[in-house]
């Protein structure tokens, strides 16, 4: 079944929304929103921690704890995870999976260390990919502002080899555009790894989710703002996917 994932950007214990992490607006309590999305049929929740301050980190752990005690679907936490200790803290608070991004680029062995400590199933390699040529994408960090010189497809394969259990693949070009997922990127990574792939960046309409699953062969499709703003309901996305023949979980 293809999973539909609701992603919440969290800063200092609140869900926020902005463009490129600027002009943030308060969108509510992450626990409340996570519970609402679970009731509406989200298959998984992702908290993207965009508040990197030390105080924000403690608040985030508390948010994870509260969510894990009320919401009984898988919870992934990503953003600012730099060490094995960071991952342990998130898992102990109740996260099921932890995404690593910049820290893995800086130190790829972190993937292997986390997989050895906690098992591959909870290590999500989060890749932000920027298109640089036809069928060529470069890994970028810092919200797309910093190029790394890593080829995104090679990096996905390396991540799989090091022990990641899932790839969270964000097209930076498509992020926030509502123009649809980057299908060519999904296909290229699919050809390189047998791990589950979460498609991210570009969701705007129900048909985009269908394309990502059918053409892009994504195992999961993620969206954030379109769900928060009520532009698309999770139930209607899933109904459209089911009608198109994409297997989805239809009762929460």
């Amino acid at each position: 079944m293809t999973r539909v994932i609701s992603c919440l950007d969290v800063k200092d214990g609140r869900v926020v929304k902005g463009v490129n992490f600027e002009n943030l607006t308060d969108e509510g309590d992450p626990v409340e929103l996570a519970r609402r999305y679970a009731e509406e049929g989200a298959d998984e929740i992702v908290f993207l921690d965009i508040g990197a301050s030390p105080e924000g980190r403690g608040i985030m752990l508390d948010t994870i704890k509260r969510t894990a005690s009320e919401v009984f679907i898988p919870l992934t936490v990503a953003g600012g995870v730099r060490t094995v200790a960071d991952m342990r803290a998130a898992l102990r608070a109740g996260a099921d999976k932890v995404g690593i991004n910049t820290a893995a680029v800086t130190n790829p062995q972190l993937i292997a260390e986390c997989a050895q400590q906690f098992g591959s199933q909870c290590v999500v390699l989060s890749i932000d990919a920027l298109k640089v040529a036809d069928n060529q994408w470069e890994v970028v960090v810092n919200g797309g502002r910093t190029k790394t010189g890593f080829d995104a497809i090679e990096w996905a394969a390396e991540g799989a080899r090091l022990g990641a259990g899932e790839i969270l693949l964000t097209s930076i070009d498509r992020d926030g555009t509502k123009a649809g997922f980057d299908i060519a990127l999904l296909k290229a990574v699919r050809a390189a790894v047998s791990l589950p792939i979460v498609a991210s960046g570009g969701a705007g309409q129900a048909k985009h989710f269908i394309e990502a699953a059918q053409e892009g062969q994504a195992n999961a499709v993620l969206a954030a703002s379109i769900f928060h703003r009520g532009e698309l309901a999770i139930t209607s996305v899933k109904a459209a996917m089911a009608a198109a023949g994409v297997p989805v979980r239809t009762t929460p």
Partner: protein
Amino acid sequence: MTRIAVIDHGAGNMISVTNALEAVGAATFVVTTPEDVDGADGLLLPGVGATAPAMSRLSQQGFDSVLKQWKRPLLGICVGLQLFFERSAEDDSRCLGIMGGEVTELINTPTLPHMGWNEVSYPVADSLFRGIDEGSSFYFVHSYAPSGLSNAQSIAQSTHGGTFVAAARRNNVVGTQFHPERSGRNGLQLLSNWLEEVALAC
């Protein structure tokens, strides 16, 4: 209130399981030594991560003999279920041998690990699935599953490439390959059913 001891063998994130059990009305306590199990009405063996480290930790803690001799309800989740069998192909580990059979890698799979929601069907009726419709979805994260069962019964199956055992029972010992604690309403219903089994056995 039903008292459930949750075994901490170092790998699992206990909090998901204890939260879910408490949400359906159990009193839980996490145990790290066999003595702590005293007074438990039911025993839960969770599991994420790899088989070999989990098995060696259980042996070091002295839980292997406790689990083999346990007469009250015992529930294993994911790797917890896999540990009930004789051997696992993961790390070629010897396991507890409470259930006859082996744990083998999933075959003909489009992706590994098998991560996500999948439909479960019941070859036989078992109280664990009471009130949960045939074909309901549960959350899986695994690359291995039990096969070639003897003296234990497959009470649920699912398909990812090939068909595999999604839950198995031998008398008071039952286990699920999926994670009921992460499976929304269906998962909470299953845990509630198991608590009922525990209460009846008291």
